């Protein structure tokens, strides 16, 4: 169960980005590969706990799970694995360990709003 460590890293990276742009984070969008070693449910649970007391408190974590995609030399094509217990091309059965996607642990976007400290003055 290292999802709490991962959640804390997500918050750290997201907050760095937010602070640099002077914005407040409503949600963090994350790509999570099937081979990342991280379980989505456990991560969502940990995220809420890890957020408390940080500037990201109350923000959402939006997870997009990424399937395992390999390159099959025999088909000369990218294929989505049907099972992570069987690293073979789902079409022709050729074994392959050439991984293209599936290890993602990537923040792709932040839903943010500008921090409005004062009401606009003199606006029409």
């Amino acid at each position: 169960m290292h999802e709490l460590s991962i959640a804390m890293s997500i918050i750290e990276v997201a907050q760095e980005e937010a602070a640099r742009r002077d914005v407040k984070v409503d949600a963090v969008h994350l790509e999570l590969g099937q081979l990342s070693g991280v379980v989505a449910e456990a991560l969502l649970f940990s995220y809420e706990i890890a957020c408390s007391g940080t500037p990201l408190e109350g923000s959402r974590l939006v997870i997009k799970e990424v399937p395992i995609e390999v390159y099959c030399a025999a088909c000369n094509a990218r294929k989505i694995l049907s099972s992570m217990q069987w690293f073979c091309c789902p079409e022709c059965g050729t074994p392959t360990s050439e991984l293209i996607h599936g290890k993602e642990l990537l923040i792709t976007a932040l839903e943010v709003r500008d921090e409005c400290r004062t009401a606009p003055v003199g606006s029409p």
Partner: protein
Amino acid sequence: MSAEPRLLEVRKNVLKHNDVTARMLRERFRAQGIFVVSLVSSPGAGKTAFLEKTLTLLHPDYRVAALVGDLATENDAIRLARSQAPVKQITTGTLCHLEATMVERALDDWEIEGQETGDLDFLFIENVGNLVCPSSYDLGENLRLVLLSVTEGEDKPLKYPTIFNSADVAVITKIDLAEAVEFDEQSAKANIQAVRPGMRCFTVSAKTGAGLEQYLSFLVGRLAGVTLKSPV
């Protein structure tokens, strides 16, 4: 009142801090000519016995040292020290895996026989016994070994494909017990190949020494690949 929400595109690796440290470590090891091997397995798969044997057999001819990670106790470091090789314990407290910064910190204040770690040929890093969490963290190693003992059953690779996928070489340990537990070596190897086609696999016994020669020649061959340093 806050402004309207908007979507900001960023592409940031969640473990970028770990990855940056791991890259720095890898570069430092390369410059120093050190070949770094990490070991992962479930608790009780025989990492420490296997590593003790590895250190003992390499120690006369090569400069070797080991870092060993555990949640608590210095027991493994004490066991490994019997090999006469320098050993340092990393105690993680409640953390279930090693991270690159822990390796960096452990190396920073470590002098081996009055020398800095830069004089080593091999550095071994024994991770915390866990087949899940260590898979996400790069430690700057050149080679990651995943150990599987015959008592764990032939289908371990199918249950933990992620860690087998993050490793470079598989080692089947405690082969001296194979008969007693009716271990099917061919089936275990087929399962390793199913989750990681082409994965190199060694079958060993730290107790009888079976299979260790092939594994050690493989390591020495890999060391020669990264450095032209000759043995002591």
